[in-house]
């Protein structure tokens, strides 16, 4: 029988305010900044460091001059006070961004960049209509045409080899699988060597579509960094995947080649590879061959990044449980299907942070092209300093270049975090 006890409360008491010594800004400060002698010292030292930096830099930033024609003019305006002379940026920002690209054609790299964002959108974000992939597929030819000028047909015709190979594969596939693969390889090669030239000529005759050609040695600044960086990124990922698969493969000879390639590239500095591209390639190629220096650099940077990429992806492959491989075999999938449907999606997902780190590294490494005479932003900063107007300008240029690189690289690392969150399938 339930008995009523008068001293048992039947309703909840309202929550009391926490005691004043457990909440509030002061408590937070005490617990986080002054919890012990060491912490107090660290806090004070950090505050002193921050104060020292701010007090030295704030005047320099606040007094900055944005409109002047030369460093002497800047100093005149400042009249002895310390201050930055960002006028060099307002005066020369076009050069830092585009190098010596003709200024009446700036719309071309701008348009190429804009279209690149459109072409990247379906690759980067899932909400974008899938049909845009067709645009991404033809974008390389379009960008080449916009940047280097000339007729639009040569790059399009070169690109047309890939759908041709696909069509050849589809046509021959019902007859014989192996023959189809051979046809898919042979069709583009035949196309490039026999048909591409005449077809391009005919098409150019019908509709010229020419832009003023721009030589490679006029390219420079961030435009050059982005061209080399983005092309290298786009090419090094597939090459890196192939190398990683080759290194994990059971085919001893293929494995040896891949290991040798990866270890060689990872063992030497990028500079030596770039010098190889600029000095030694003439030795290794048939006499008389000469091709564009930017293309050479892109190839070397791609090889370099691909070797690192291969190691990152190998880590992802090794992290997959053995059962995944066995399950794919048990389903009767052949090697490529198993890789494409089961192994690689998981392995790549695990290795996203490493892959993006390699991308960021590659983008930063594009600055090394200054050593073989291409004008990257750092090379241009030297060129600007060599002029009489801006002789002696250092920090403003460095701040601008550093900020631009920071925005790109930081953006990439934030995107990788977003991608990791989006692809997370475990429920932890």
């Amino acid at each position, binding site marked *: 029988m339930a008995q009523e006890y008068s001293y048992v409360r039947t309703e909840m008491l309202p929550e009391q305010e926490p005691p004043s010594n457990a909440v509030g800004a002061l408590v937070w400060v005490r617990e986080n900044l002054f919890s012990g002698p060491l912490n107090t010292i660290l806090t004070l030292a950090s505050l002193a*460091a921050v104060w020292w930096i701010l007090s030295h830099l704030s005047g320099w930033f606040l007094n900055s001059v944005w409109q002047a024609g030369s460093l002497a003019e800047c100093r005149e305006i400042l009249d002895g006070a310390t201050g930055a002379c960002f006028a060099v940026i307002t005066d020369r920002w076009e050069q830092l961004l585009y190098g010596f690209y003709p200024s009446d054609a700036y719309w071309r790299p701008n348009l190429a960049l804009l279209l690149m964002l459109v072409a990247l959108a379906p690759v980067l974000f899932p909400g974008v209509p899938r049909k845009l992939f067709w645009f991404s597929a033809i974008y390389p030819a379009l960008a080449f045409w916009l940047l280097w000028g000339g007729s639009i047909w040569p790059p399009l015709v070169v690109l047309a080899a890939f759908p041709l190979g696909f069509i050849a594969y589809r046509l021959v596939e019902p007859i014989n699988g192996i023959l189809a693969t051979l046809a898919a390889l042979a069709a583009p090669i035949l196309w490039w060597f026999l048909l591409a030239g005449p077809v391009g000529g005919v098409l150019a005759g019908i509709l010229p579509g020419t832009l003023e050609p721009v030589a490679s040695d006029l390219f420079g600044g961030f435009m050059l960094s982005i061209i080399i960086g983005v092309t290298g990124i786009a090419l090094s990922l597939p090459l890196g995947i192939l190398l990683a698969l080759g290194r994990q493969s059971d085919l*001893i000879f293929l494995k040896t080649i891949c290991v040798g390639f990866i270890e*060689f590239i990872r063992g*030497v500095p990028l500079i030596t590879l770039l010098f190889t591209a600029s*000095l030694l390639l003439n*030795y290794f190629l048939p006499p008389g061959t000469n091709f564009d220096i930017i293309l050479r650099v892109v190839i070397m940077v791609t090889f370099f990044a691909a070797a690192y990429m291969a190691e990152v992806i190998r880590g992802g492959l090794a992290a997959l449980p053995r059962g995944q491989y066995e399950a794919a075999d048990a389903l009767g999938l052949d090697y490529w299907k198993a890789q494409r449907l089961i192994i690689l999606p998981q392995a790549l997902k695990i290795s996203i942070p490493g892959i993006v780190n390699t991308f960021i590294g590659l983008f930063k490494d594009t600055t090394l092209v200054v050593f073989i005479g291409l004008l990257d932003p750092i090379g241009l900063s030297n060129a600007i300093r060599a002029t009489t107007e801006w002789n002696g300008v250092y920090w403003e240029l460095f701040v601008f*270049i550093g900020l631009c*690189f920071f925005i790109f*690289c930081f953006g990439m690392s934030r995107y990788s975090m977003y991608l990791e969150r989006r692809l997370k399938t475990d429920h932890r």
Partner: protein
Amino acid sequence: MANAADPPKDSFRLSMLVYDTRYRSITIQIVALFLFMGAAAWLVDNTIQNLRTLGKDFNFSFLWSRAGYDINQRLVEYTNDSSHGRAMLVGLLNTLLLAFISCVTATIVGVLAGVARLSKNWIVARLMTIYVEAFRNIPLLLWIVVFFAVMTESMPAPSAFRGDDPAASMLLFDTVAVTNRGVYVPEPLFYRSLGDIDLGIFLVSLDLIAIVAALVQGFYVNRAIVGRATRIQEATGIRPTTWWQSILALFGPVIAVLVALGFHLGYPELKGFNFTGGTHLRNSLIALWAALTIYTGAFIAENVRAGILAISRGQTEAAFALGMRPGRTMSLVILPQALRVIIPPLISQYLNITKNTSLALAVGYMDLRSTLDGITINQTGRELEGMLLMMLIYLLISLTISAAMNVYNRSVKLKER
């Protein structure tokens, strides 16, 4: 009747090379082998042809001919009468020196920053986040150029140290001079030097050997002392105080050797237009050292942080439950375990430092690339031999470092059964 599981006893047909999975891998490999050999032969043939067209041959005899250029920083004897091979050696030693000191300081900076980034102190953690993000996202080359500009543009000229009321003064009780021509630090000198020993390739100071021997001997004696203390502790539960024995064992022999050799410091002095005496650390070395240290330190900090975060929270809680303070928890419980996670990426950071020393070109530091692959190949026109030799040397350095670090990694790895 044949068992159903028996393989069909068909005779071998040529098409099985393609369709039968037992043979297909061999087919693929043989095709790949031929393609590879074909490509290699093509490259070699092109090279031979090109060399013949240029009227060059392929030999390394230029390494023994007179170099004829000066190198401003040299760890071994070198004049412009020495050979190109010797110039290469000087450059190689400069590369190794830079790589070594940068690895040491980058590790220190990285470990401190990585631990500080996890600190509960809000300001310290934020500052370290800013440091790591800023240095990881901006190219190393820019940092090298920036540090070089700081040294050459913002530091006082030697003449600023002159006069009764100089504009600049020397640091650390007038022993270190930071000028726009480099940093002058005191140099070690000996009244009763033992002289040098000639190793054939270069001279090694016997004083240095004596000091290193004393240090190593002290290290081993100290290890024996600590080992004995541990045995006593295990037997009796009481650890004898050993700190003064350790200090004596570690520093006693070195101090004795230094006194015996008549050790003293030679201080830099302003004479004429420049400082003389002391050791001159060039701006290029300082800039590269600082940039490599701070840049790679940011990467190592991230590796250290990841390693610490990989240790489960339970370990910290267990250490706290045993009554350990946070500092001892970190040094005795977390870091030893985290080390196993940290070391493999640390190895690749060391390799990166070694390879990144080749950026020395940007500030005119005479490293391997600037000597062998810069002036030497410009003078002799042997770019093929020079490049191949340099790649080989870098490859050897990289493989040696990674082999050595892998041995260390194996020794700290968790022994699993």
